[in-house]
């Protein structure tokens, strides 16, 4: 009986979402106060019913209700409680429910936290979000109901996919979805702006914190996913240019461009059309990501079931939102011309370049991701685009970006002068490069890759440049404006990330070895000794466990344990690597197969500076959080600023 409550709740939520969009969009059009108030109430109601459905499914997992097909396919009597809850979003239907829940949560937050918005505008934003909700609720109920019954109910379930039984997985999808779905808020703001023909500084000020919040979640979600792939999936790699990874990365690039372009639109009233387009792109790329994951058109680590009807449905939604919003854009954009100029060297120019480079990177990654699909559909052969392509097309636009960010952070609006800042910046760049060369030759003893020293140097320069103004303010005992501080922290994080990537890419060592008890192998000066192996029994798996002791110059460094787990139900093995973490490197041991003659295959890895990749992501997200807390995003109605108003040009670092 309880699962039917879930189905019913989803249906009611669908009807309410229709009401939410009709009340919102039509109500705003007719300027009907009652309808517009009803939008907010229906937003709350949609959220409550989706939450109810979600709880019903979670309850099914907790009490092992195998009469629900989805539970039977993704749970098991022996599955620990934490993974039974994570299993709610462990496969297609449930993760879609999570998608919808997060969408309705964003809508709820918008309706609760934006009291300062004019009623008409808020109604349009909520109405647009309602429309997105209608699409995905219909998708869930029509093609992917998680509450389908399986009768007679089996006594035990088929268990959760073993690679998903991991703590990082519990957090990765919700965080990533918060980001993915969060782009719909910026999209809704853009649609509302186009519908009302009003797009001024206060519009940007309303949109910015939401965009940054979504971007922050996306950053954390991608970092978590990369970390998870590192120790569960990827045998020690942190990024594979897998189509689904790309699918999450392209919206990130677009949102990053968007938060920078919004800054210009808020402060200078420029780039309006471009900002609107970016908001549409970011959301479209999120939908495209959903399509790629759901339809199974691409082979990927994350692909869910390949069900053509599901793929078609998402493709339909994708087309509807892209075509709809671009049509609206074509009608409205001419009336939203930006006015006002800026000098070639100015904050505007730097942000314009930032946008061009980020969008170029996103476009080239999109090309590489979709090309296999294009080739296949024209019967030109089955191809895959290799990681070197992505490395190249990503590095070429983003490497100059590192230098631009370091310099551009200190620019001013309209016309920037580097009379007083040029010298310190040049000094920082030189010191950064020298430091980079020192790290390469002294710490690692060799040049590395062609770009190693540039990478290290760029990272150090960026970190120094980011810290400069906050430190200067600290010394002068000035207040730290949160937006400026957030920007500095996020850019500092980019610097950390660049250093981490440079270190891993240049100096990592991977070695597959065959080892028996007592055997040793040495990489990067660390000696790995295979101590012993034994069988271990887990809650829902059996495992072979190997003990590996690591020494350096005879001194013990770490004792690692690595397991190959054989899950009882799904009969799928997974590898649990042993990782020793230090501030400057990871040592990584993964157990392979038994090779006969008492030997095992083992993969040994030395990963210098790899932690800074994820730490950089955390700093970026933290920077976003600090920026959202800026004073000017709080408080009530913001006085509308005239479109051509240029007095808002700020003197110092607000990004």
């Amino acid at each position: 009986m309880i699962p039917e409550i879930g189905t019913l709740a989803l249906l009611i939520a669908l009807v309410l979402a229709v009401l939410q969009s009709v009340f919102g969009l039509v109500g705003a059009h007719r300027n009907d106060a009652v309808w517009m108030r009803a939008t907010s109430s229906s937003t709350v109601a949609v959220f409550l019913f989706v939450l109810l459905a979600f709880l019903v499914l979670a309850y099914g997992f907790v009490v092992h209700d195998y009469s629900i097909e989805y539970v039977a396919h993704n749970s098991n009597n022996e599955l620990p409680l934490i993974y039974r809850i994570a299993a709610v979003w462990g496969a297609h239907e449930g993760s879609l429910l999570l998608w919808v829940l997060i969408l309705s949560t964003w809508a709820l937050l918008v309706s609760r936290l934006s009291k300062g918005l004019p009623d008409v505008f808020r109604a349009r934003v909520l109405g647009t979000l309602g429309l997105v909700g209608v699409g995905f609720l219909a998708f869930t109920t029509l093609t992917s109901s998680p509450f389908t019954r399986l009768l007679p109910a089996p006594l035990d379930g088929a268990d959760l996919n073993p690679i998903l039984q991991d703590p990082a997985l519990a957090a990765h999808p919700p965080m990533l979805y918060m980001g993915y779905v969060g782009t719909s808020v910026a999209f809704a703001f853009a649609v509302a702006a186009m519908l009302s023909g009003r797009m001024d500084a206060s519009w940007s000020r309303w949109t910015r914190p939401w965009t940054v919040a979504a971007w922050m979640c996306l950053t954390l979600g991608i970092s978590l996913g990369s970390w998870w792939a590192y120790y569960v999936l990827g045998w020690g790699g942190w990024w594979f240019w897998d189509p689904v990874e790309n699918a999450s990365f392209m919206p990130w690039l677009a949102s990053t461009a968007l938060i920078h372009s919004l800054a210009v639109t808020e402060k200078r009233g420029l780039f309006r059309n471009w900002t609107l387009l970016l908001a549409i792109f970011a959301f479209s790329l999120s939908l495209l990501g959903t399509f790629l994951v759901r339809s199974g058109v691409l082979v990927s680590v994350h692909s869910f079931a390949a069900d053509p009807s599901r793929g078609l449905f998402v493709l339909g939604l994708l087309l509807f939102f892209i075509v709809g919003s671009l049509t609206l854009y074509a009608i409205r954009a001419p009336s939203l011309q930006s006015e006002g100029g800026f000098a070639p060297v100015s904050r505007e120019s730097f942000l314009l370049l930032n946008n061009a480079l980020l969008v170029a990177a996103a476009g080239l990654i999109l090309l590489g991701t979709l090309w296999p699909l294009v080739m296949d559909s024209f019967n030109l052969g089955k191809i895959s685009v290799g990681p070197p392509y992505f490395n190249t097309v990503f590095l070429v636009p983003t490497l100059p970006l590192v230098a631009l960010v370091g310099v551009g952070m200190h620019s001013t609006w309209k016309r920037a002068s580097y009379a007083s800042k040029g010298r310190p910046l040049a000094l920082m760049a030189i010191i950064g490069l020298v430091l980079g060369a020192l790290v390469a030759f002294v710490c690692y003893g060799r040049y590395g890759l062609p770009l190693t020293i540039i990478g290290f140097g760029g990272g150090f320069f960026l970190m120094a440049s980011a810290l400069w103004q906050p430190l200067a303010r600290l010394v002068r005992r000035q207040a730290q404006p949160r937006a400026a501080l957030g920007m500095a922290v996020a850019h500092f994080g980019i610097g950390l990330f660049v250093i981490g990537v440079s270190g891993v890419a240049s100096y990592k060592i991977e070695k597959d070895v065959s080892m028996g008890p007592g055997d040793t192998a040495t990489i990067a000066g660390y000696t790995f000794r295979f101590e012993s192996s034994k069988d271990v029994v887990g809650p829902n798996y059996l495992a072979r466990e190997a003990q590996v002791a690591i020494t350096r110059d005879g001194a013990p460094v770490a004792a690692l344990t690595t397991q190959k787990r054989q899950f009882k139900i799904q009969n799928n093995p997974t590898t649990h690597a042993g990782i020793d973490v230090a501030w400057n490197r990871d040592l990584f041991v993964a157990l392979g197969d038994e090779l006969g003659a008492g030997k095992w295959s083992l993969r040994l890895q030395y990963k210098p500076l790899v932690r800074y990749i994820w730490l950089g992501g955390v700093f970026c997200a933290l920077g976003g959080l600090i920026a959202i807390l800026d004073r000017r995003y709080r408080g009530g109605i913001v006085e509308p600023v005239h479109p051509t108003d240029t007095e808002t040009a700020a003197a110092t670092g607000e990004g």
Partner: protein
Amino acid sequence: MTPRRKRLWTLIAVLAGLGLTALFVSKAFEKNLNYFYPPSEVASGKAPSGTPIRVGGMVSKGSVVRAQGSLEVQFVITDFAKDVTVKYTGLLPDLFREGQGIIAHGELKDGIFMADEVLAKHDEKYMPPEIAKTLKRQPDGTPADGSAPAGAVTR
């Protein structure tokens, strides 16, 4: 500079930028497109030797041979029409098993596929689309429409 001249230079700069980008993308593309060949096409000589390609199929039952205690492994993949022998040195993915679909990346050398990477599907029911298409209506009755729940290819 007159506005007209300024516009001309901007146009030239933009076109040059676009041209360079196109050139560099096509170069990067050329080098990194890996074509996929089923065993039948390898056997009939359609697949090129000496350039990186991918092959995929089912690992034949009883074909996995390993020198005792060594990382070198040899196996046969099949599309139930033709076979290809694959050699690989290193760790095989978790789900590498006889009777399962895999994709190998590497080069053909004297009719033997020297793999530098082996990818296996990550679920018993999931089939990479390339293999599914190759195996359509094959004797072992494996569904080729991919109508199976969650799964993935992984390394």
